[in-house]
Structure formats: structure tokens, C-alpha cells
């Protein structure tokens, strides 16, 4: 056991910190730190810098362009980039499809797609959820019917993040209608400009529009765009979801938001408010406990009471803690949450009602934070899954 990171790890941390300091554009940093909306160009600008440095795909194996980091290094990279105000890596190509392609793709598929993902030239949208299904992926109804060298795909996907940034789509489709749920599902890739595909933005209650619907109307997808075997798509999707959840504890993001709470308390002259100070202290302590648990799990040779359920438990605790932090930010904002300006949220101009501070974004951020316990499998589903492991083992 050792409290401190090794000197090598600390040196790596410093390197990342310095890199962010030197390379991150100050306007992007300002948007991130103030909880404002980012454009695609903001993400691409930062990802290109990471690509140039060789750091864009920490989760990929070295031979496919990953940096070959230890879990601790990946952890430190996440923390330092987020604490430094860098955008998160939201590209599904990097986080989700990449690992699936690497594990299950043909050599041709890998050559065709991986390099463009790494260079942010190609952005992938995820087509999993469907209307009326939510976390219950297995009950999907989008179909793909074989027609010569093509599949004909028909259906309707929702909650597709950032599809308006994307040129490609990976998609779960039903290839065997008679099979049981979770069977008869295949994993298909397609260009978003294929005829028959329509992307419609979903306006969200806090004014954002990161999510979309994707309508698929007799879309012809070449058979070579199938990942792995037909009807085995559920396996690949589960592999992908496992990848999605690592890092979902969001330690770096929570640390960044706690710094924001402290800054706002000071800026608003509320340092003497013992209630807010106590809440900050309580949340700081909860974050330390979550971080320690995340690192303990990375360490692995410790006994962990819920083997197999670690990711779910980190997701549950991490998202609920982040929601608590966003709620505290919302409390600190006081009456400043009453006015709202979409322009101010985009830093496109300063709303005269709000002034030049970020307080109006705090209501939007609070509303947005509710998604944390919904997406990636609701926290209810995570607790169901975990309890099964705990009470049946």
C-alpha cells in the first residue's frame, strides 16, 4: 500500500498538466469552466492537439494507436485534462466503436475506419436506443433484412448523441425477428448520407440539442458493414457498454465542478455562509471516498465485495455525487437562475440581464445533470444488475 503516486506517475501528471496549459485554447477553456455549450469545432480543435501528441485514444491498444498507458496513467490523464478545463472526449468513435472494431472488426474494417476516427475526420453516432425502449435495449424493433449484398434497414433510433456532428452511424438492428430478445440482433455500420436516413435534432428542456432521432427508411447497407457475425450483435454491444462505463465515475469532472462551487461562493461574497461551506466539505469528502474506491478497483488485488459489479457501483455513486455537486452549484446561484439566455450559454454575446458571469448556466447545468442517472443504463437498472450479483452469489 502506498498513499502517493510513484515519481514516474507524478511526472506524467505534470506532463499532462503542462500540455493542457500550453495547448488548450483559452476560449474553449472558458466555455468548459463556465458550463457553457461547445461547438463541434471546439472539440475538433482540442482532439487534433491530442492526436498530434499521440494521446487521443488512451483506451486503445498500443498497436492500434493507443499510448500504451497503465490504468493509473489513464486515470491521471482524465483527471488532469478535465481539471485543466479541456473538453471531455465525447466522440463515440473513440470511446465506443473503436474498441469494438479493434476486438471484432475485420482487418479491412479496421484500416478503413480507425485512422479517420483518431484524426477526428470521421465522427460516429450511436444508434442503440429506440422509442419506448429506453434502457431496455433488447426490446428494439429496427430491422435489417438481407437483400443480396445488402441489408435493408427500417426503423427509428432515438437519444443519438451528437448525431448532428457525425458522418457515420453504428447501429443495432434485428436480423432475426423470431429470436428471443437479446438474440437475433446484429451490429451494423453505415454512412449517415446513405439515402433513407434522416437525422432530426431533439430539443432538450435546458435548451441544448446534443441528442437526435435517426429515422431509417429502406436504407441499403452493404453486407461488408456488418461487425462480426450476424445475430451476435448483443455480444458486441455488451462489450461496448462495458467500455462506456469505465471512467463514468467522473472523478475529474466532479473535481472541476467542486472548484467551480468554491470559486462562485467566493465571487458572490458567500464565504461566510456556514451551510454552503459544510455542504462543500461534505461533497469533497464524498469525492475523496469515491476516488479512493476507483483507484482501489484499478489496483485489483484487493478483495472487492462486489466483483463484477464495480463498474455499476462506480457509475451509480459517481453520477449521484456529480448530481449533488450540480445541485449545490444551482443553490449557490440564488436568484441568478431566474433569467435565462441561450446566447449567453453559447458565449456568443453577453446577455445584459445576466451580466458577464456564468450564473445563468447553472440552472441549465443542473437540468442537464439529471441525465447522468438516466443514460448509459439508468441507475435503477445498474442497481438491479448489481443486486443480482450481490444476492445470488
Amino acid at each position, binding site marked *: 500500500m502506498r498513499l502517493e503516486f510513484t515519481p514516474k506517475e507524478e511526472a506524467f501528471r505534470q506532463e499532462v498538466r503542462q500540455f493542457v496549459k500550453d495547448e488548450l485554447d483559452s476560449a474553449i477553456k472558458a466555455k468548459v469552466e463556465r458550463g457553457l455549450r461547445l461547438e463541434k469545432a471546439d472539440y475538433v480543435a482540442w482532439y487534433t492537439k491530442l492526436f498530434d501528441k499521440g494521446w487521443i485514444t488512451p483506451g486503445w491498444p498500443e498497436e492500434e494507436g493507443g499510448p500504451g498507458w497503465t490504468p493509473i496513467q489513464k486515470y491521471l490523464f482524465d483527471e488532469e485534462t478535465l481539471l485543466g478545463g479541456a473538453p471531455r472526449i465525447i466522440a463515440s468513435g473513440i470511446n465506443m466503436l473503436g474498441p469494438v472494431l479493434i476486438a471484432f472488426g475485420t482487418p479491412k474494417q479496421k484500416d478503413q475506419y480507425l485512422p479517420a476516427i483518431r484524426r477526428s475526420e470521421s465522427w460516429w453516432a450511436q444508434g442503440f436506443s429506440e422509442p419506448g425502449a429506453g434502457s431496455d435495449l433488447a426490446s428494439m424493433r429496427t430491422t435489417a433484412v438481407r437483400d443480396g449484398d445488402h441489408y435493408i434497414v427500417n426503423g427509428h433510433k432515438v437519444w443519438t448523441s451528437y448525431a448532428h456532428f457525425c458522418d457515420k452511424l453504428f447501429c443495432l438492428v434485428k436480423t432475426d425477428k423470431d429470436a428471443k430478445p437479446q438474440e437475433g440482433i446484429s451490429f451494423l455500420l453505415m454512412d449517415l448520407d446513405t439515402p433513407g436516413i434522416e437525422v432530426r435534432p*431533439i430539443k432538450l428542456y435546458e435548451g441544448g440539442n446534443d441528442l437526435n432521432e435517426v429515422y431509417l427508411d429502406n436504407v441499403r447497407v452493404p453486407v461488408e458493414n456488418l461487425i462480426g457475425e450476424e445475430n451476435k450483435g448483443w455480444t458486441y454491444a455488451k462489450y461496448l457498454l462495458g467500455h462506456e462505463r469505465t471512467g463514468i465515475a467522473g472523478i475529474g469532472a466532479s473535481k472541476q465542478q467542486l472548484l467551480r462551487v468554491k470559486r462562485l461562493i467566493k465571487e*458572490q461574497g458567500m464565504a461566510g455562509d456556514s451551510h454552503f461551506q459544510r455542504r462543500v466539505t461534505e461533497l469533497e469528502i464524498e469525492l475523496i471516498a469515491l476516488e479512493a474506491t476507483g483507484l482501489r478497483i484499478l489496483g485489483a488485488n484487493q478483495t472487492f465485495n462486489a466483483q463484477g459489479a464495480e463498474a455499476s457501483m462506480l457509475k451509480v455513486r459517481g453520477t449521484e455525487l456529480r448530481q449533488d455537486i450540480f445541485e449545490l452549484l444551482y443553490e449557490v446561484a440564488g*436568484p441568478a437562475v*431566474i433569467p435565462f439566455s441561450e446566447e449567453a450559454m453559447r458565449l456568443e454575446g453577453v446577455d445584459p440581464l445576466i451580466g458577464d458571469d456564468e450564473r445563468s448556466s447553472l440552472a441549465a447545468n443542473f437540468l442537464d445533470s439529471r441525465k447522468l442517472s438516466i443514460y448509459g443504463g439508468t441507475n435503477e437498472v445498474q442497481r438491479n444488475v448489481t443486486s443480482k450479483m450481490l444476492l445470488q452469489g
Partner: protein
Amino acid sequence: MDFSISEEQLQLRDAVKRFCDGEYPPEMRGQQVSADMRRERWGMMAELGLIGLAVSETCGGSDLGMVEQMGVLEELGRCLSPEPYLSTAVISGSLINALGTSEQQQRWLAPIAMGQLRVAFALDEPRERYAYQASLMECRLTLEGEDYRLSGEKSLVLDGADADAYVVAAQHDGALQLLVVPADAVGLTRTTGSTLDSREIATLCFADVLISSGQVLAEGERAECALQAVLDRTSAALCAESVGAMTELVEQTREFLKVRKQFGAVLGKFQVLQHRFVDMVIALEQSRSMAAVAAMAVDEADAEKSRKLVSAARVSVARAARLISKEAVQMHGAMGMTDECQVGHYVKRLMVAERLFGDISHQLQNFAKSTATAA
């Protein structure tokens, strides 16, 4: 304590409900409507006697109390009405009613009751947070002969974007003054914007605006007492409005739990959601009780007791609103976070109601102070 409703109160509620169901059909709630349509609705509310409910009979009102207004506000909250009922009928109307000379009442109150004049309330300022003491206000009056000049800035003026006039709180040598200022006064500029829940709001900038003595409603201690009273009244109104919005959120969640299937069963069959839904209903019912307590306190109790019960009601309602909002969103899933779904519009209305004229911390302090004074 007696919560039973009289026959007249019930009839009033029914009338308001019919009006709201007709004028605010579900698909329009939370959507922007034209100024013309809103003007028309406002006229209908005046005809129904809703705006003048608490206005004295000499000015064309019904001389009723907060308990009656509560029924109106609950329905307006249930339908997400964007009409300036709170600012004009509850706040400005009651201030002019309580403080105005008969001339002032004829000039401003009668047209308010008739729906011809919309008067917003300018109290908050950009610098301080819910600091409603005159000595902290930067909006100041200076004497000029028999008249005054008013300078300073007022922020968060709800329904202020197209109000015809404003009741303004300002200080004169440390003492509070409450004034009526027409929207077209020389030297008054307004910057308009939107609230979180898409209603209209304004910042007012007064640059040496001439105020004649006829515009002064009250000053000094009389103004202080009236301000305290109207803040209590406003809080009671916000509680009633919130109860309406929460009722609808609970109803929509109940319906959703009954029809939406997940993993082969309707959501309402999952025990964790059942239990959390029970807690939503408990929170709602407690809020309903407290909104009634607040309204009765405004109508009946002395200043200290009223302040205590009203601030208790606001805390209680705000906590309930937070719980119900979170659960309604969570149970609706991603759909609950879309602009298309009504849930979000109710959630945002409740968020604004929580923050107008004092947040939870502010109300807790009010409660503790009034308890200490009363004890």
C-alpha cells in the same frame, strides 16, 4: 385550524378550472403564444373577476382574500399560465389597494381590476441577493422641489417586459419608498429578456426619472410594513402556483407509470418506483396543506406569525418541488428531458417559483428570525 372550503370558494375554483381548461389546452402549455392572445386571455380573466378578486369593491373588485386567490393561482400554475397574474393582481394590485389614496386607487387600481393596466413589481437589484432593506438599495430618490428624482437599476422584474407601469421600491435617505412609475416615464429604459421558463422579465434603468408626490404610495415604516406584507402574500401565491404545477407533474408521472412498459412490465409494477411515487404524493399533499396554511396566515395572522408560517410553507413547497421534479424527470427517462415533453416546462416553472423573492436559505432565515421574535 380548519381546511374546509366554502361553497362560494368551490364555485370560484370550478369557474377558474373551466377557464383554464379552455384557454390553456395541454398541447399549448409551455409554448410561446402571441401578445394578442395573451391580451385576450387577460381580458377574459378580468371579466371573470379574477384580477380584481382582492381589490376593494369601490374599485370594481370583490374584496376577497388570499384564500380565494390561492384557488386561482393553483389553476394558473397547473396550466403554466404565462399571464402576469402574480405581478399585477397579487403584488401591485394589493399594494395599491392597501396603500393608495382614493385618487391613486381610481387612477391605477380600477384599470388593473378591469384588465386594462398591467403593473409589474420592481424590487430586486443586481448587486445584492434578496436584500430587501431600504438601506441596501441602490435605487435612490433625491428631492427636487416638491418632487423627486429616481436613479438606479432594478433587476428580475417579472412580467416587466411589457408592463404598463411598475411599483418600484427605492430608498430616500435610508427610508423605504414605494412608488408607481409608468413604463413610458422619461429616463426609464428597460432591457427585456426571458426567464428560465420562457416568461418575460426585464431590467429597469432609472436615470433621473421625475417622480411627483402623487406617485408615492407610502414611505418609511408604513412602506416597510406593506413590503413585508406583500412579500408574504407573494410567497403564499408562489406556493399555490407551485402546488398547481406539482399536481400536474404527479398526475403525468402517474399516467406514465401506468402505461409505459420496460422489460416486459409497466413501470408502475416496479417496487422502487412505487415507493418513490408514494413519496412524491406525500410531498405534494404536504405542499397543498402548507399552501393553504400560508394563504390563511396572510388573511388572518399578525405579521410575525404570518411571516413564520409563510416562510415554512415556502421551504416545504420548495423541497417538495425539488423532489417531485427530479423524480418526474427520472421516471420519464430521457423523454422527460426533452422540450417536447411537458415535464420539463413544469420543472422550470417550479425552479423559477423557488427563486423568486427568496430561496430556501433565505426562507429558513426568515423562519428562524420570526420564531425568535415570536418566542
